[in-house]
């Protein structure tokens, strides 16, 4: 090694040498694609232009044709409904379970483990299981709901335009429970115990402690969980792709499925990228909102 690099990488600076491979790898595999998505959104990129080896700049034309596509407002609306509804119920169920699991009762560690067991099951598998459970003729869910008297006749969950979005939301709520339980439960274990002891001495009951202590103290964790939930749910693709493919008609089309269809079924990569950029903008808004709230709260 010549003198110069040796000097550069001595002492603390040697650390950069350790970061370098990962940084370069991520720059190529994430940084460049991110840049290229934004660039493509302003270019005409189809299989035709790609095979000619050119990508002409076309200004806002991709955005214009995306906005003119009647499927776009539907996908945008569905994305928002899907994301907000999924996150809301995942969070409520996750919080309830986290609070219960934080109490002392027999076998709670086993319950906790089992409630997290589905965390990394590929969404394609979960989607497939629910596709079968929501099956019209022989699905377990129709059978169960009829048995307990909630419905009189089988529901066409995935075949009916009015129910398909609800069905994928229900599936996605199940998918998100472990993630919410993990984050919220670890937030709960981090709370200071002495405050609770003081509240008990003062005669506060369980519900008062929950409303006046737990929830306010948990605010940073709750905000982070909701924000991450939003980010991770807005991008959901596999579950919907395997359960409905965005249908019937457009009933479950969301921005990720629309972007994918535009790129890989219609081979209009420029328009797919334009939809990605719109999604990116939405994620940015949520992130900015989150950072501002946490700063205002002085967290």
């Amino acid at each position, binding site marked *: 090694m010549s003198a110069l690099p040796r000097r550069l990488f001595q002492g603390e600076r*040697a650390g950069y040498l350790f*970061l370098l491979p990962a940084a370069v790898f991520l720059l190529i595999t994430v940084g460049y*694609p991110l840049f290229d998505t934004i660039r493509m959104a302003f270019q005409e990129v189809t299989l035709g232009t790609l095979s000619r080896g050119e990508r002409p700049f076309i200004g806002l034309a991709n955005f214009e044709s995306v906005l003119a596509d009647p499927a776009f407002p539907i996908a945008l609306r569905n994305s928002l409904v899907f994301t907000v509804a999924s996150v809301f119920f995942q969070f409520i169920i996750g919080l309830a379970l986290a609070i*219960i699991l934080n109490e002392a009762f027999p076998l709670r560690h086993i319950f906790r483990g089992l409630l997290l*067991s*589905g965390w*990394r099951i590929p969404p394609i598998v979960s989607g497939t299981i629910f596709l079968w459970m929501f099956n019209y003729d022989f699905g377990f869910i129709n059978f169960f709901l009829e048995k307990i008297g909630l419905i009189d006749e089988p529901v066409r969950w995935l075949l009916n335009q009015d129910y398909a979005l609800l069905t994928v939301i229900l599936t996605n709520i199940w998918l998100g429970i472990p993630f919410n339980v993990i984050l919220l439960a670890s937030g709960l274990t981090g709370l200071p115990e002495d405050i609770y002891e003081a509240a008990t001495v003062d005669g506060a009951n369980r519900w008062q402690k929950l409303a006046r202590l737990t929830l306010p103290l948990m605010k940073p964790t709750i905000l*982070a969980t909701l924000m991450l939930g939003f980010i991770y749910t807005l991008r959901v693709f596999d579950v919907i792709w395997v359960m409905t493919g965005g249908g019937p008609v457009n009933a479950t089309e969301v921005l990720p499925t629309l972007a994918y269809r535009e790129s890989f079924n219609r081979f209009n990569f420029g328009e797919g*990228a334009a939809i990605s950029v719109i999604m990116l903008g939405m994620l940015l808004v949520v992130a900015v909102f989150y950072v501002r709230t946490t700063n205002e709260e002085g967290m």
Partner: protein
Amino acid sequence: MAAEWIRLYRTERTRKRVTKGVLFTIALIATIAYIFPLFWMVSTSIKDPADIMRDPPLILPRDVNLEIYKEMFGSPPEGTQIPVDGLRYMKNSLIIGAGTMVLTMLFAVPAAYGLARFRLRGSNIFMMLLLVTQMLPEVLLVIPMFIFFRELHFTNNYSSVIIADAALTLPFCILILRTGFLQVPRDLEEAALIDGTTRFGALRRVIVPMVRPNLIAVTLFAFLVGWGDFVFSLSFLQDQELHPLALGVYNFIGYYRIRWEGVMAFSTIIAIPVVIIILALQRYFVTGLTTGSVK
């Protein structure tokens, strides 16, 4: 007076017992409801095919029927409806999983060590970027990656899928491993360095054994991401011969007449290693997930 105290003590004890009982019951019902879909997957895969399309359904299979596993992962008998070479799918998933694992660890170990051991200007920004990377939608990355790999004639090749999966897994793995390295006392490493070992020598002989649990957790996690890959395989691999298990499941659903026992058997094969690894190593993933996401 004493009798009064005993009475008070007893009611308090009963109250606590009732509370515990109620909590236990709620947790039990919630857990059963949550686990049910996974149970239903396994149960469907081992039922007699005649019992699957049944109204009302059988909750438990009459007996364990492993025919579909033999058909799909052994030798399919002549004239089966959808001849499926399950072992080929499994081999593809194993290759993608192993590749993702090796590539991820190659970058993750030094990066996590660098972040934990050195006071570097910009390391906070680097960690911030890792968190942001984790949040990017897969669909956003798959489009430019496809074009990138297409230009390199890299599509229809395991490597494209492995590289994409490693990129998506790397941030999480670096963050978990970093917490592992932070737990190793600095003196220990310095002692090793003074003994004349090189930094890499110290890393290999002193530090790696101490962070072994985190290392194992992260390695298996990276494997699981590749093992269950769907989006990248769907987009990059046109050749059916290269398709992994998850894509197999998706392909079967496209058939006009779905054989649910087969689809559920495939799903079970994918899910089993995932559930086992997550249950066994929960602790590490939980710390990694929370340090990575909540400031």
